[in-house]
């Protein structure tokens, strides 16, 4: 019995572990090309990511926007609305926060609250626009959100460069003025970069888990994710679910931008989120963890670790930073096969009852990879 329980707990982890092992093997080949020893490079990466308090807290700081974007993606994708607009939503979120915090009138607390609320609204509305286009014009969510990523990037760049540009310093960056100290998120430890945004991310993980697993709305959205026709047949409005989930997903992704502005840069810097590709890494985290909020949290920290570790070895060896993208792309590629295995297992669950999730990962019937 205990053996079964352990297997049930470990079964969902088996394939991600396998995928990570494969991806590390591909990464090792890439490292060999550079003429370095993969084992020492990986050891250095691990040390650079989690080796001491400084590295660990840097990784967690980097993981913060990834976790938040990952939750935003998980919410939309788990209800089967596969938008890829996290980047654009994060951009408008960060931009709105910075502009409102800088220029809104009133006392500090009011400006802080207003800047966060407006960012949530901006991200949510951008996502709603895609939802509306899908609803009214049957436009592919993937395409509209992708296009809005670029549109958001250039439109905000226009406003930063031509209206809100920071002209005080000699920096060549397209960025806004610095936000005053009273509005900045406090640091959690003196002298380390980790800030309040991380705690917000942890709070969001719990809230998302609660929403998806313990509320009617979460149940309805999961229904819509399983089978949209069945969901409408059962009296759940799939339209309501779509608008609700996409609004929420956009608002959460926008919060990632807010957290970066108020917690790290203290201003909006053009191209910052795009070059760090927080939203894409967050989406990858959501995919790897199968849209499970706690899984998103852990996976984001691992992926952030690959990035900070990658940056550490890029400083000390000849291995370029992009080794982290290679490893990450391979993980999701290898895991994509699992997503189908998972849904197949789920469909057998419906027949056998919920406990059969303990079924072994590879079904002998599925070994040939044929559709049933």
């Amino acid at each position, binding site marked *: 019995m205990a053996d079964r329980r352990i297997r049930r707990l470990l079964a969902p982890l088996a394939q991600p572990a396998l995928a990570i092992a494969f991806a590390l093997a591909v990464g090792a080949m890439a490292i060999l090309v550079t003429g370095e020893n993969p084992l020492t490079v990986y050891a250095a990466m691990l040390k650079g990511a989690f080796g001491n308090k400084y590295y660990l807290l840097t990784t967690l700081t980097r993981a913060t926007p990834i976790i938040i974007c990952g939750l935003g993606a998980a919410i939309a994708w788990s209800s089967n609305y596969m938008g890829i607009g996290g980047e654009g939503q994060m951009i408008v979120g960060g931009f709105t926060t910075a502009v409102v915090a800088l220029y809104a009138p009133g006392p500090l607390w009011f400006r802080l609250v207003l800047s966060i609320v407006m960012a949530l609204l901006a991200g949510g509305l951008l996502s709603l626009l895609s939802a509306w286009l899908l609803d009214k014009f049957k436009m592919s969510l993937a395409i509209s959100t992708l296009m809005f990523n670029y549109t958001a990037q250039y439109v905000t760049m226009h406003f930063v460069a031509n209206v809100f540009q920071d002209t005080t310093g000699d920096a060549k960056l397209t960025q806004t003025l610095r936000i005053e100290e009273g509005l900045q998120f406090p640091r959690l430890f003196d002298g380390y970069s980790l800030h309040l945004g991380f705690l917000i991310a942890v709070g969001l993980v719990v809230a998302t888990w609660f929403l998806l697993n313990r509320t009617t709305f979460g149940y309805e959205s999961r229904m819509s994710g399983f089978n949209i026709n069945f969901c409408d047949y059962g009296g759940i409005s799939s339209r309501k679910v779509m608008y609700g989930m996409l609004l929420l997903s956009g608002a959460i992704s926008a919060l990632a931008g807010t957290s970066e502005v108020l917690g790290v840069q203290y201003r909006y810097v053009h191209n910052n989120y795009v070059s760090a590709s927080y939203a894409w890494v967050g989406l990858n985290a959501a*995919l790897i963890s199968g849209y499970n909020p706690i899984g998103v949290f852990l996976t984001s920290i691992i992926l952030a670790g690959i990035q900070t570790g990658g940056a550490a070895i890029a400083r000390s060896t000849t291995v*370029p930073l992009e*080794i982290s*993208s*290679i490893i990450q*792309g391979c993980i999701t*590629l290898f895991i994509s096969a699992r997503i189908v295995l998972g849904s197949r297992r789920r469909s057998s669950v419906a027949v056998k009852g919920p406990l059969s999730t303990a079924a072994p990962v590879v079904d002998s019937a599925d070994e040939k*990879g044929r559709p049933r």
Partner: protein
Amino acid sequence: MNFDANYLAVVFNSTIRMTTPILYVALGSALCNRVFIFNIGLEGMMLVGGFAAIVANFYTGSLVLSVFFAMVASMFVAWVAGVFMVKFKGAMLVVGVSINVLISGATTFLMQIIFGSKGAFVSTKLVSLPKIDVSFMRAVPIMQTMFGSLTYLDLFALVLAIILHIFLFKTVAGFRMRSVGINKPAAESLGIHADRIQILTVVFSGLVSGLGGVLLTMGGVTMFAQNITAGRGFIAMAAGTLGGAHPLGVIASSAFFGFAQSMANMLQNTSVSSQLTMALPYASTVLALALYNYVQNRRILRSATK
């Protein structure tokens, strides 16, 4: 800015040069649509083609080998994507996103290893695609402006669209291919190897995307820059949809996006904000798709009420 005939000719010329890379990828995307594959990895396949061409170009100095190497590289990446999508039943969006992340990382990684440069790579050793000689048009200078500095690869894009049109709608093989997209189980029941056709289509879409990438890195300018495709693969997907997954329709929709991009470039030297014009191709994609779908839906409604 003065809108004389010469200016319009320049716009026309730049529209063609902006259109053809998109057209290649859009044709690939249209074919994928025809076999029910949503291939978001075209962006990565385009990027790898452009990169492979520059690498081969640098080491061999041969145009033929550059194009060949680009085709092989992008076909290989497409084959991996196709196998994961069709054989391993990976979610298409997930496979595509992974391919894009992987290729974007791998090309930047290799650029640093091979060329030792981070952002962009240019070299005097690189040869560019030869331009079509338009001196026979010298009697009409405006024609020279309109069709000047184009490569044979630009021209081939149009030829390819026509060939694909004939293939899809006039041959048995094309009919089989379309049947997979309309109803895969039904096609399989008639003995059509649907999986094989789907994978082959993805591989072919990779091949043409690679050619689009070659045009980007060896057409107008000869260089490679980190993520030089800048979302053109995504725009091409929209063009494929907008063209009704029909090769000739795709020419028109690609030309629309090419025009938006060339306008963005032309307006950069004017008082119009250059950042806003850069957003133009992407925003107009959404508008055009909304309009297209609106018209389509109304047509369906009207034929239903008749």
